[in-house]
Each structure stands twice: as structure tokens, then as C-alpha cells.
């Protein structure tokens, strides 16, 4: 194993890791937004919204994320959507992650005992007041861990955007292999950095989860 080579190139990998982190954070943000809207739609009183929510989830969970990215990035210009690779990566992965988060958020909400809403409504709270004062504060606590799992998956999924040439970790590793012919070292380095990102995220999620538990 060529440790020397790894020491020489790792600063470039750090830059690439920073891109991966940015990608992950923006994707998570968009994913949470889509997931919240998706869950709201799936739990709506209106059948149309419930249908749209369900369609969104099955469409984006039922096809490979890579195909979704390709359609957006390569197919987009054909229908008038011009995005640079990074933008396409964030939007494509974000919408995809949102489909998974929709189910996570919805699952947490429907797992709250129905007696909670009944008690709130009985006191005179409206449907919406009951939701945001009674249901959501409890559901939010239940969401932290499973959303952490979504986050873990999403970070790993950012490797896919190498295929549309976003210069993140995986793409950088591939590029250095082209000049060094050392795939073992280069992928190992990328893997290590992914591991660190995922480990730190996992710790943060665990911390948050402890923090929000009811004493």
C-alpha cells in the first residue's frame, strides 16, 4: 500500500469531502422539506393530496436514484430544465430522499396514540392546533432516529453524483486513479473520509435524540 501517495493527495480529497458535506447538507434540507410536504399530503383530509403524496413516494422509491439523476441532468435540457451538475445533484437526491423521509415522518405521526388527538380536540383545540401542540411535538421526538437513518443513506447516495461529474469524493477518487493507477489507495482514502462524515453525523443524531427525550 502506497501510504506516501495517500499522504500527498489527501488535501485534495479533503476539498472533495467538503463538497460531499455541502451536497449532503443541502440534500438533507431539501429532503426534509419534501418529506414534510409529502407527509402532510399523505395525511391530508383531501383524497387528491393523499393520492399525490402516495404517487410521489412510490415513484421515487420505485426507481433507481441514478436514473432519476440522469433524467434530470441529461434529459432536463430537452424539456427546458438547465442545471449545472451540482444543482442537479442536490435537487435529484433531495427529491429522492424526500420520498423516504415522507414515510419516516408519516410513520412517526401515525404512531402517536389517537387518544392524544381526541383529548386535544375534546378541550376545544382545532385539528391544526391539536396537530402542532400535541401530535407534532411527540412525533418529532420519534422521528430523530429514523431520520438519522435516512441521513446515513443520503450521505452514501451522494456518491452517485460522480456519474454526472460533480467533483465530490467518489469522482475525485476516480480522477486520481486515472493519473496514479492506484485504485486500492484512492478508494480507501475516499471510503475513510465517508466513514468519518457518517460517524460524526451519527453522533450528532444520537446526541439530538437524547436531548429531545422527555424526562
Amino acid at each position, binding site marked *: 500500500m502506497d501510504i506516501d501517495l495517500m499522504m500527498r493527495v489527501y488535501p485534495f480529497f479533503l476539498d472533495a469531502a467538503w463538497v460531499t458535506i455541502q451536497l449532503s447538507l443541502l440534500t438533507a434540507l431539501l429532503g426534509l422539506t419534501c418529506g414534510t410536504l409529502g407527509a402532510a399530503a399523505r395525511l391530508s383530509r383531501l383524497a387528491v393530496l393523499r393520492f399525490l403524496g402516495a404517487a410521489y413516494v412510490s415513484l421515487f422509491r420505485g426507481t433507481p436514484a441514478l436514473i432519476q439523476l440522469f433524467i434530470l441532468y441529461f434529459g432536463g435540457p430537452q424539456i427546458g430544465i438547465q442545471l449545472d451538475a451540482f444543482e442537479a445533484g442536490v435537487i435529484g437526491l433531495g427529491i429522492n430522499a424526500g420520498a423516504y423521509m415522507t414515510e419516516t415522518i408519516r410513520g412517526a405521526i401515525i404512531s402517536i396514540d389517537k*387518544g392524544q388527538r381526541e*383529548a386535544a380536540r*375534546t*378541550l*376545544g383545540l382545532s385539528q391544526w392546533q391539536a396537530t402542532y*401542540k400535541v401530535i407534532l*411535538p*411527540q412525533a418529532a421526538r420519534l422521528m430523530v432516529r429514523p431520520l438519522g437513518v435516512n441521513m446515513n443513506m443520503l450521505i452514501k447516495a451522494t456518491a452517485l453524483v460522480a456519474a454526472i461529474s460533480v467533483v465530490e469524493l467518489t469522482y475525485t477518487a476516480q480522477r486520481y486513479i486515472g493519473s496514479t493507477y492506484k485504485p486500492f489507495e484512492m478508494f480507501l482514502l475516499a471510503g475513510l473520509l465517508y466513514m468519518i462524515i457518517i460517524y460524526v453525523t451519527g453522533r450528532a443524531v444520537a446526541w439530538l435524540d437524547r436531548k429531545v427525550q*422527555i424526562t
Partner: protein
Amino acid sequence: MTDQSHFVEIRHAQKSYGTLEVLKDISLNVERGQIVAIIGPSGSGKSTLLRAINDLDSLTGGEVWLDGVQVNKDLPHRQYEKHINAMRQDIGMVFQHFNLFPHLTARENVVMAPKMLKGLSKEAADKLAEEQLEKVGMLDRIDYYPSRLSGGQKQRVAIARALAMKPKLMLFDEATSALDPELVDEVNMVMKKLAEEHMTMIIVTHEMDFAASVCDRVLFMDQGVVVEEGPPEIVFRKPTKDRTREFLRKHLAGVA
């Protein structure tokens, strides 16, 4: 509007789930300050009837009136929501499984709705919480989360939460059924106290002794109909219907 003259009036209540008829043309009047107990075998429709009063379960036929206002008015969705939310502020409800909000302390459980719906100041809310929790003997646990309270204590906080809205009517759906036997009395004491203050109450219960000791009237339900109704000394001691006698034989231990 017709001649509305009783404080609570249930007129020809009918409820079906598909082809299953759970309430069959039930009528019931309750006067201000009266306490009515509803007894009957499991599945007879007691909870359904009680929950129809504040429209937690909607009737498929019939009317519910409280203090001159129809609760289950026929209104467009938005207007109905406004109407029912206002009506429910006047109807307190206590559940078998307490349904306290686990993310809020006893104090917060009690004042959440009054703060949101009546715009109480911080001081007024604190005073209200202390008042209501004092009444149910829970002042010393005012800042406890429900997870640190016993079943009986939870139920007492739940009663305080309902009372904090200053309801005109209180509904109890087997308030003590989920409690360990030794915790039943502390909740019954609170309900007795309410009775002494002339709170209008409709109580679904399996506890015949308690029903006999606090209520003005007993309703025996079976299979969606009121089989027998009258003052407790009549219904418990000299029931006229076979079905009532049979039910009481199974459930009556100490009342005599």
C-alpha cells in the same frame, strides 16, 4: 329550534357502523346539576353514546343539545369545525386511559388549552393551574411529567385539565377502569367532590357501588338501547326488566 327545555338533551340518537347498529333511537335528558350513570355490558354502546355528546363519534341520526344549543348542527365543514370547537370547550371529557400529554408537565397539561383558546396571561395561567391541581390534590406534583405519576395521579391531573376549561358538563368514560384497585378511591373522591359542587356529569362506569352513591339517575343499556332507567334505588334494588336483573346479578357485589 323547538321547545328546548332540558340542560342536556339527546333526541333519538342513532349510530351505525355499516350494518351494525350500535345506538338504536336513544333519548336522554339531563338537568343542570344532575349526575347520570350509564351502566351496561361491554359493547352495549355506552362509550359511543358518551362520545356522541361532544361529537367525538358522530351520530348517524338524532340530535344532541346542550344548554339550548344543538351540538351536532348540520353546517358546512369549516363552520361546523368552529362551532364544535366552541361547544367542546363547554364539555369536559375524561378517558379511561387518561390521555395526558406526555411531553407536558401537569401544569402545562392543565393550562395549554385555556392559554391557547382563552388567551390567559402567564399569571392567570399559573393561578388556574394551581387552583385546578389543588382541587384534585395534585398541587405537590405540579411540575411533574406524566411518566412520573401513578395511574390515579394521572387521572386526577386529567380531570383538572378538563375542569380548567370551566365546562358546563363533564363526561367520564370509565375513568377508573384502567386503575389498580387501590388507586380507584382517590379518583372517586375527586368525582364525589365535583358532585357536591353540582357539576352536571354523565358517567359511564362498571362500578355499581360508586354509581349508586353519587348519581341521581341510572341508565342501563344493552345492545344499543336503554333497557331501564330510573333513580339508583329503583334500578339497583327493584329492577323491572329481566335483562337488568341478570346484568346486576353478575356485577353487583356490595350494593344492597
